[in-house]
């Protein structure tokens, strides 16, 4: 089948899909008129029961924590797939430091510290203000990725060492499961929140979901850093081989 034929077969199908989508979307409640009973109940119960101000994260890490466990393992499996595809070489190239500007070093170091600090803050206050393990984890990994731009490959390789990252990622994913099992051991359903949590609006609010949040943060940060390190190796190794 040639490319042209394929596109001509596809276009009517696409028009059909578009018509179906429009027809289907006409049947859902008008924009702004939906009042989901689940969200309504969560809004009124999450803060008194779980001591969390941020109902979105109360849903993500506590009330629907089981769904998030599934998401975590999609992430886990995808990263393992990437590593298996890309990690075909053991050579760790010795690269010359390419960054020569002092200005980049000074401001870059500040940016790295700032990004990692913001990431930690996002994870820590996930139940109070917008944030949480997923967003904070990506921010921490992004800050560490900046190290490559600021200080070159050698400094980044210290951050992106798989012997350090793999256990962190494993502990993050395993910790999530274990916190859930702890509830089972106490005779409660899987991933039930074990303590009522500290004062509302503090870092301590959230009970055992706080640990779930930190486990997610650890796993997301480590998984993203592993991705960055593997991709960066793809870029660096051929250059080093040629020179």
């Amino acid at each position, binding site marked *: 089948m040639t490319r042209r034929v394929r596109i001509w077969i596809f276009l009517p199908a696409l028009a059909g899909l578009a018509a179906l989508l429009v027809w289907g979307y006409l049947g859902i409640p008008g924009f702004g008129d939906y009042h989901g009973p689940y969200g309504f109940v969560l809004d009124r119960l999450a803060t008194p029961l779980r001591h969390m101000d*941020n109902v*979105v*994260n109360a849903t993500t890490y506590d009330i629907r924590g089981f769904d998030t466990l599934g998401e975590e393992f999609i992430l886990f499996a995808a990263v393992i797939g990437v590593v298996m595809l890309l990690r075909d070489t053991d050579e760790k190239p010795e690269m010359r430091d390419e960054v020569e500007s002092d200005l980049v070093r000074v401001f870059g170091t500040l940016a790295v510290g700032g990004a990692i600090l913001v990431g930690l803050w*996002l994870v820590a206050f996930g139940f109070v203000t*917008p*944030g*949480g393990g*997923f*967003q904070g984890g*990506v*921010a921490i*990994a*992004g800050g560490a*990725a900046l190290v490559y731009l600021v200080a070159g490959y050698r400094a980044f390789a210290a951050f992106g060492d798989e012997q350090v990252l793999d256990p962190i990622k494993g502990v993050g994913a395993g910790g999530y499961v274990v916190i859930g099992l702890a509830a089972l051991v106490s005779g409660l359903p899987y991933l039930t929140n074990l303590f009522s949590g500290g004062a509302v609006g503090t870092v301590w609010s959230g009970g055992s979901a706080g640990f779930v949040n930190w486990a997610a943060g650890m796993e997301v940060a480590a998984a*993203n850093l592993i*991705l*960055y390190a593997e*991709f*960066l190796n*793809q*870029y660096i190794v*051929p*250059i080093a081989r*040629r020179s």
Partner: protein
Amino acid sequence: MIATLVPLQSVALALVALLAPAVVLARDPLRMIIVNGLYGLVLVLLFVIYGAPDVSLSMLVVSTVAYPFIVLIAIARVRARRGEKEDE
């Protein structure tokens, strides 16, 4: 508050509707990832207007760091291999 929100929503939605085809039609991956960054930032804006700061934070960290990083390296890798072949 609501009166000002609705025009803002229309503007953000229009930007999303325009930038999505712009990303797809920028056939060169390098140009595409730059337009994609812009599209991501418009989504961030729209999610804030929708009252979803958590989601917009998620989109923000992903579209500014994670996507460009891995896509740029993939582009560079493909180009480097083409260069190696021409050397031979």
